[in-house]
C-alpha cells in the first residue's frame, strides 16, 4: 500500500490514512466506471483525496467520507466533460474475458460499456452508484446533489436504453 502512517502523523492524519488505505481501491474502481478512463479516474480521486484530507476533521465528523469523495469525483468529471464541449466520454477498450459462456458474457459487458459511454456524466454516475455501489435512491440523490425523482428518471432511462441494446444484440442488429 502506498500510504504510510508515520510517527509524526496527527490523529486526524492517521484517521485519514487508515480510511484511504481501506477505501482507495473501491474509489478508483468507482471513478474508473464514472469517467471511463484510468487517467481521469486517478486525477479525479487524487483531487478528491487532497480536498478530503485538508478538511478531514469536518468530513469525518459531519459527512460520510465515501459520499464526500464520490461526489467530488462526479463533480470533477462533469466539469471536465463540460469543458471538453460535451464530447463523448472516453471508454477503455473492451478486452477479452474468460468465463463460463465467454461469448455471451463479452457481448453483454460490451453492451453495458457502450451504454455507459453514451450516457451524460451525471446519469452515468447515477447508474454506477445504483448498480455498482448498490446505493438506494435517496443516497444517490445526496451524493449527486439532485432530487430523488431525477435519480429515478436517470436510472429508468438507462435501463430502458440497455434493454433496447440487449434486444438488438439478440436480434443480431448490433
Amino acid at each position, binding site marked *: *500500500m*502506498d*500510504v504510510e502512517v508515520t510517527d509524526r502523523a496527527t490523529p486526524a492524519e492517521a484517521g485519514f490514512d487508515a480510511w484511504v*488505505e481501506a477505501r*482507495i*481501491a473501491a474509489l*478508483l*474502481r468507482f*471513478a*474508473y*466506471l464514472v469517467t471511463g478512463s*484510468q487517467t481521469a*479516474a*486517478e*486525477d479525479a*480521486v*487524487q*483531487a*478528491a*483525496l*487532497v*480536498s478530503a*484530507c*485538508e*478538511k478531514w476533521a469536518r468530513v469525518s465528523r459531519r459527512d460520510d467520507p465515501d459520499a464526500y469523495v464520490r*461526489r*467530488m469525483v462526479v*463533480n*470533477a468529471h*462533469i*466539469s471536465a466533460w*463540460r*469543458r*471538453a*464541449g460535451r*464530447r463523448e466520454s472516453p471508454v*477503455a477498450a473492451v*478486452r477479452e*474475458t474468460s468465463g463460463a459462456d465467454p461469448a455471451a*458474457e463479452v457481448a*453483454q*459487458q460490451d*453492451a*453495458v*460499456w457502450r451504454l*455507459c459511454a453514451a450516457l451524460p456524466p*451525471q446519469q452515468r454516475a447515477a*447508474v*454506477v452508484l445504483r*448498480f*455498482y455501489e448498490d446505493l438506494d435512491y435517496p443516497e444517490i440523490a445526496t451524493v449527486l*446533489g*439532485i432530487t430523488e425523482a*431525477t435519480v429515478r428518471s436517470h436510472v429508468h432511462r*438507462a*435501463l430502458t436504453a*440497455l*434493454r433496447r441494446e*440487449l*434486444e438488438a444484440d439478440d436480434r443480431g442488429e448490433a
Partner: protein
Amino acid sequence: MDERDVEQVLRAGLAGHAERADVTAPVAARARAAVAHRHRTRWGVVAAAAAVVLVIGGAAVLTRGGDDRAAEPPGVADSGTTVADPPAGWRTEYYGGVAVDVPAAWGYGGAPLPSQPLTVCAPGGPPGYVGRPIVQTDVCTYLRSGWQPTAPYVWLGAALAPGTEEWDNGYVQETVEVAGTTVTVGTADAHLRAQVLATVRPGDLCDATLDAVPSGHLDLSREGTGTPRPSTLCAYRRDASGELVLAYGRRIAGRALAESLEAVSTAPASEAKCDVDELVVLTGDFDDRYGGGPASQHQELMVAPDCGYVDIGGAPRKLTDAAVHPWADPGVRATLFYFIGPQG
C-alpha cells in the same frame, strides 16, 4: 427480458469493468504529497505577510517622493475591509479571498494550474496581464525548459509557494499569500512589482466562496424601477472540491444591471435542469422614486451561463445575449467557460 434481468446484466457488466481499473496506482501517495506541498506553502504565509508589510512601507515612501501621478501606486487599503476605488490608470482584480490593483491597460491570461503548477494555458502578452488558473486554450506553456516571461504579470490563485524566482532576462517573480489566496507578481521593474504587491489585500467586494447556488431577487413596485446606483458583479466557478470560488469581480455601472434586468424580464421562461458549475451574481440598488425617502429597491440576478438561465426569484428565465451583453467585459470573457468555449 424483464427489468430484473436487465439490472442483473448491468450489475455484472459494471462489476466486470470495475475489475479492469488499476487500483495499484499511487494515487493516495500523490494526494499526500500535494497536501504536504500546500502545508509548506501555508507555513510560508507568515513570512510572506511580513514581507508584504515591508513592501507596503517602502512603496509609501516612494509614493510621497514621486511626481508622476499616472505611475503612482494605488492607495494602500488601511484596514483591508472597505472597497476603495483604485487611482486613475489602475483597476482592481479579485480572485478567491484576495484583491490586488494592476495597471488598467493590462489584459487577461492564464496562471499555473492547481493540478499542474508548472503549466500555464494562454499566458498573456504586453503591456502586461492578469492570469488566473483557468484553461483558456489547449495550447499550454511549460514554465521550465528555457521559458522566460516577456510581459509583466500578476497571477491570482496560482499553486505556487510564497517566495521569489529570478530569470536570466531580469524578470523577478514574487509570490505572497493573503486570505488563503496566492498573488504572484512577475516583472523586471522592481518599482512596479513593489507597487502592485503593496496593494495586495483581502478582497471585500464579493464573498470569497459560496456555500450554495444563490437565488435571484427583485424588488419591484407598480411605478417601476428608479435610477440605478453603482452595482456589483461577482463571478464564481466550482473548483475540484465542489466549492464555488470567486473567480472574478468588479463594480459595474448601475445602467448595466438595469439593461440586463430589462432583457431578462422579457426573456421566455426556462425549463433548464442543470448542475451549476459557474455563475455570475449581479447585485445593485435602484432609487425608489416614489418611496419618499432614501429607500431603495434591491435587485439581484443569478446568471448560470453554463445552464442557460437567469434566476430573478420565481421562475427562471432563459439566458439571452441581450441579458449578457451589458456586463460581459474582457475579464468575464477570460474567466467563464461559457465565453471561453470548449477546447480540444
